[in-house]
């Protein structure tokens, strides 16, 4: 992972924090001082990779996940060299949407993509990507969505409920001219010319399963070995880790997207039995993380953790990933018809955020987050319960209130959207 020096962290007096004898090795978590020897060109090149920005806290290089609301919760974005694990929702609706946002962001920024799936052909996945919302259309489109009144209202100082002004706001609308993080329209497809102009590699497991292995079999499942080999091959051949002498040092990010890792389609029996080969997935994640740490790449994995029978594996997988986000959609559950949740489509749980190069990390104070998918916007907001306005308070709604109120953070959300008759 590449890091950019910031002025706030001047603890050491040594001029060069680069390990002695390293070539222009910008790929592990190294911070470059402004006086580092002979690396000024690569230093400036790091800053100018499209679609990345340095983190304000510790100078890590960040890429956008494709969802600006999620970027904000993760402390600015996904750090290059780390793994983002998405725990899928039950019917894999929203997690595949996040996966597509991640890939679409890569195409818009010109990053190289590596798409791995055992279920769908990567070429088909790329055809289904959502179209980006470009800046000049943005303002017009948002008038329709009635989000505009929220952003306009937030600038008005509150007179009566002035305490609510102090609560943190979650970003719901687009920031004008954001080159980091874009918004996508789910109802339209990405234009064909953008897809063709992009550079991508696909790994479709049913096609590759028949070819021979280069390394001797170990306890990893066949599918995982082939996938690791494929990823390592791409990283080496295209110079993302700088170790191949024949290829020029790559100035781009490799975005790796792996869909449904751990499902039976990869040949792993983790989801089928309680005593499956439990080491296979964890070993895969470890070696994958080793590959990522030594190259300019970022990875998003979606995993159907609700299918894994052995709960200990989930905690091991969480410890082996850097960032873990869980999605829980209301579809098919009793919460879908619950009037308390009717503004939202599901809950989002930020289970783990890494502390990289630091003792502390950016953690949001809001722990109860819910998401809502509109046509052009995927918002993540603080979950709040609407006030109970019925004249006779029925017992069933009291019980419903008791359970989620345990989860509530303090206070009510500022963005009381949706119910227009409550605006005051």
């Amino acid at each position, binding site marked *: 992972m590449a890091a950019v020096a910031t002025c706030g962290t001047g603890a050491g007096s040594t001029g060069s924090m680069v390990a002695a004898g390293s070539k222009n090795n910008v790929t592990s978590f190294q911070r470059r001082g402004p006086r580092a020897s002979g690396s000024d060109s690569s230093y400036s090149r790091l800053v100018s990779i499209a679609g990345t920005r340095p983190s304000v806290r510790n100078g890590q290089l960040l890429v956008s996940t494709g969802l600006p609301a999620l970027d904000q919760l993760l402390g600015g974005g996904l750090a290059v060299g780390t793994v983002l694990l998405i725990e899928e929702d039950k019917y894999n609706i929203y997690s595949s949407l996040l996966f597509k946002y991640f890939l679409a962001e890569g195409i818009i920024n010109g990053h190289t993509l590596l798409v791995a799936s055992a279920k769908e052909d990567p070429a088909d996945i790329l055809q289904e990507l959502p179209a980006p919302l470009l800046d000049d259309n943005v303002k017009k489109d948002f008038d329709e969505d009635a989000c505009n009144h929220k952003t306009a209202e937030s600038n008005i100082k509150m007179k009566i409920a002035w305490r609510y002004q102090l609560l943190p706001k979650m970003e719901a609308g687009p920031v004008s001219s954001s080159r980091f993080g874009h918004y996508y329209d789910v109802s339209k497809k990405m234009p064909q010319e953008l897809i063709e102009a992009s550079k991508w590699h696909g790994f479709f497991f049913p096609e590759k399963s028949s070819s021979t292995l280069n390394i001797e079999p*170990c*306890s990893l499942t066949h599918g995982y070995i082939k996938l690791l080999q494929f990823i390592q091959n791409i990283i080496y051949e295209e110079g993302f880790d700088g170790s191949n002498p024949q290829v020029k040092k790559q100035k781009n990010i490799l975005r790796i997207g792996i869909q449904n890792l751990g499902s039976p389609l990869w040949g792993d029996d983790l989801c089928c039995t309680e005593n499956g080969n439990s080491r296979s997935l964890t070993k895969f994640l470890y070696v994958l993380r080793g590959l990522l740490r030594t190259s300019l790449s970022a990875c998003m994995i979606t995993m159907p953790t609700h299918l894994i029978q052995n709960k200990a594996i989930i905690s091991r997988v969480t410890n082996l990933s850097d960032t873990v986000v869980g999605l829980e959609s209301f579809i098919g559950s009793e919460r879908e018809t619950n009037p308390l949740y009717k503004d939202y489509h599901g809950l989002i749980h930020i289970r783990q955020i890494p502390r990289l190069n630091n*003792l502390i990390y950016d953690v949001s104070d809001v722990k109860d987050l819910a998401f809502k998918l509109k046509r052009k916007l995927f918002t993540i907001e603080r979950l709040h319960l609407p006030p109970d306005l019925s004249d006779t308070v029925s017992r069933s709604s009291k019980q419903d209130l008791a359970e989620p109120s345990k989860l509530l953070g303090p206070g009510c959300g500022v963005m009381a959207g949706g119910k227009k008759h409550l605006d005051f």
Partner: protein
Amino acid sequence: MFPELNNLLNTTPDRAEQGKLTLLCDANTDGSFLVHHFLSFYLKANCKVCFVALIQSFSHYNIVGQKLGVSLTVARECGQLVFLEGLKSSVDVFFRAQAEPHPLQFLRSVSLQPSPEVHAWEANAENLQPLYEFVREALKPVDDGEAAWRCPVLLVDDLSVLLSLGMGAVAVLDFIHYCRATVCWERKGNIVALVHDSGDTEDEENNILLNGLSHQSHLILRAEGLATGFCRDVHGQLRILWRTPSQPTTQRDWSLTYQYKIQDKSVSFFAKGMSPAVL
């Protein structure tokens, strides 16, 4: 090194104890700040440190170490620190066939499903012997007469990852036992190891490992998340337990509990309920 933690543990770099096994444990929270503390503590105490870092890369520890006042690159260059970077070496071991034995060569081991016919003591069976050899070699006393460093220290971050990589709990316990015999008893050094406590998820192997190590260790530092949930000003609770495993239990085990808040360059400790934010 956090000065407040040194006060709580009643040690300074000048008078570090020898021959001790310290167990770091975290439950529902991240206990890696303890690893950074002990790493900088022993480097400042002029000890020779062998750090088996399986979870993060070298520059991560280096950057945090600089905030705490030690430079890992300098220590590595002058020989005080032997650093095994697990993530980077795993890629080398996995993809390129190695002729000479590598400490992490168990990553390539062919391990079949556990069945009664496969015995644990087969050749190429899962054990951590190459890793032990690496540690022993790294902490070998220098033979040129002058004692450059005070005592050898082995630091492992963390042992639960070895379970995820295919080792059994017994293999990891054997490894620690061998290291203890060499480092703690033979060379009068210290061992510090981090183990994750999985809490209520039934990770039996992890529990075996944790209980086995708790029984052998002299000092247990357990970082827990607050029982009441997330708090911005109090990040967790630290339980310190002093034990005397080898002596008869005439002295009782002695424990203290503190709450802590992690800041950018230090960690502040306070008694339960006495967080400065509350007072």
